[in-house]
């Protein structure tokens, strides 16, 4: 317990009070709080080592560039990617997916080709593919989930045809909290001759990620959900594919030579990093991923497991509560719970909980098609991070029961 208290001290925002009550922050799937190691580096790079990257020969530029490129090495190691050229920095998972949708689309997608996306995906993993299909005259197909929220792997082979170019799936659903069987999905897709993009926005937070073991072709994530500065993100792409893809944006530092007669591009990864990069933010990925690693300590994992068991047990006991994303086994779910309650609107619950000091999310969670699938206009979502305590879970349940009582009268 002392260990948990110590780590909480590293996250200054966790000590905040709202409406005179201690903040209980349970909206971690939207964005995590940041540790002092991240805030400190962010500040230091802004205050003391601010210079543009890769361009100049002066000392400050050299220090800033070293920091930035060392981050690339750290991310490569964290993901167990084969080479640093496969790590492209972006402004977030959304930017990374849009990059792939454009550049992969230009290189590989023709009229009549097919892209498959999962029914439970975040809008960021749906809309860019709709836009790509619109541009190219390609067809978007949907891999459905069953009533429990699990992807119907049995339906996948039939969806894949020789014209299927890419399958896009989340590592972990931001609504259901279920860990998807991405390794199996990749196997099925590769044997059918199509590539796989994994949206790791939630996945990067809740377990080790090994892109070579997963064997995916693209893996994307945002920094801000995994303790790093906002406006940071990563695209991992298989080198052979990135090599064949044209740049997404043109600009400074992504070029080799620029002539009026034509321009040649820089090698990977600079080809995809046009313009001035987030030189203060991106390096915070390094201490952030170190924190993610530290939070994977067995002591914290045991705490997460206890919270998960407590929450599932209590939520199942509340009359009229419907949980979305029922795990077949505890390992299959992260401590993220989306649900609806009969005669208690998700917005009302969120407003009341807010005044009790609890931050949760209500609404569609950027997954409108999934809301339609379950026939609801929205849900309430509580998402825990390893720095949350069992006491906070207990306080949440008490508060939820009180809010429901208020609303049902």
């Amino acid at each position: 317990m002392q260990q948990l208290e110590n780590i909480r001290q590293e996250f200054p925002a966790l000590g905040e009070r709202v409406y005179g009550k201690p903040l209980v922050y349970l909206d971690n799937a939207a964005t995590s709080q940041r540790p002092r190691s991240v805030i400190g580096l962010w500040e230091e790079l802004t205050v003391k080592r601010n210079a543009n990257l890769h361009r100049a020969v002066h000392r400050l530029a050299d220090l800033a560039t070293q920091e930035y490129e060392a981050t690339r090495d750290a991310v490569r190691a964290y993901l167990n990617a084969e080479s640093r050229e496969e790590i492209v920095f972006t402004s977030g998972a959304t930017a990374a997916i849009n990059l792939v949708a454009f550049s992969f689309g230009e290189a590989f997608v023709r009229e009549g080709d097919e892209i498959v996306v999962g029914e439970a995906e975040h809008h960021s993993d749906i809309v860019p593919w709709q836009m790509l299909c619109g541009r190219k005259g390609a067809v978007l197909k949907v891999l459905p989930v069953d009533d429990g929220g699990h992807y119907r792997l049995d339906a996948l082979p039939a969806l894949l045809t020789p014209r299927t170019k890419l399958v896009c799936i989340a590592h972990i659903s931001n609504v259901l909290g279920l860990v998807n069987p991405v390794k199996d999905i990749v196997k099925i897709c590769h044997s059918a001759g199509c590539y796989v993009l994994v949206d790791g926005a939630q996945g990067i937070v809740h377990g080790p990620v090994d892109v070579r073991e997963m064997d995916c072709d693209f893996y994307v994530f945002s920094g801000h959900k995994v303790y790093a500065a906002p406006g940071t993100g990563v695209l991992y792409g298989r080198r052979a594919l990135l090599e064949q893809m044209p740049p997404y944006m043109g600009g400074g530092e992504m070029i080799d030579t620029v002539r009026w007669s034509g321009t040649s591009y820089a090698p990977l990864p600079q080809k995809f990093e046009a313009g001035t990069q987030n030189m203060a933010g991106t390096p915070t990925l390094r201490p952030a991923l170190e924190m993610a690693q530290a939070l994977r300590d067995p002591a914290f994992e045991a705490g997460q497991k206890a919270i998960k068991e407590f929450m599932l047990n209590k939520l199942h006991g509340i009359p009229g509560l419907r949980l979305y994303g029922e795990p077949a086994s505890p390992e299959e779910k992260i401590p993220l719970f989306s649900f609806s309650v009969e005669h208690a609107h998700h917005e009302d619950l969120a407003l009341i909980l807010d005044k009790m000091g609890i931050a949760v999310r209500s609404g569609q969670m950027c997954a409108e098609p999934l809301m339609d699938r379950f026939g609801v206009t929205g849900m309430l979502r509580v998402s825990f991070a390893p720095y949350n305590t069992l006491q906070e879970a207990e306080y949440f349940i008490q508060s939820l029961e009180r809010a429901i009582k208020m609303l049902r009268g």
Partner: protein
Amino acid sequence: MKTLQEVQAEVVDDFSMYDEWLDKYEYLIDLGRRLEPFPEELKTDDRLIRGCQSRVWLDAREEDGRLYFRADSDAIITKGIISLLIGVYSGRTAAEIAEDDFAFVDRLGLRENLSPTRANGLASMIETLRQTAKKCC
């Protein structure tokens, strides 16, 4: 008949009796419950107020130069808020509503306590009332 300003002052007084926000919510929930039933057939897209997380329907009709409102929402606190608003503005002339600055909403503390969340679309509700009145002027 009381003036619009007098009615607004009364509502602000009632609301400020509660120190705690949870008590204010209880009050709004109660207002929402007591709102007269809204006919299902009036729940059409053109009566739906955009920009709310919950669904809010507003129906307006003009009679003898005055506007009368009916409303509903699938969320009870939002229903309480719209009930409070139409309680103030129902039966007023279009000109009175269109010229009002809606500043009493600030005095209720609703805007800073609810509006930043975008949740209940308070601004959208006010804008819809204002636009409806303008159209009738």
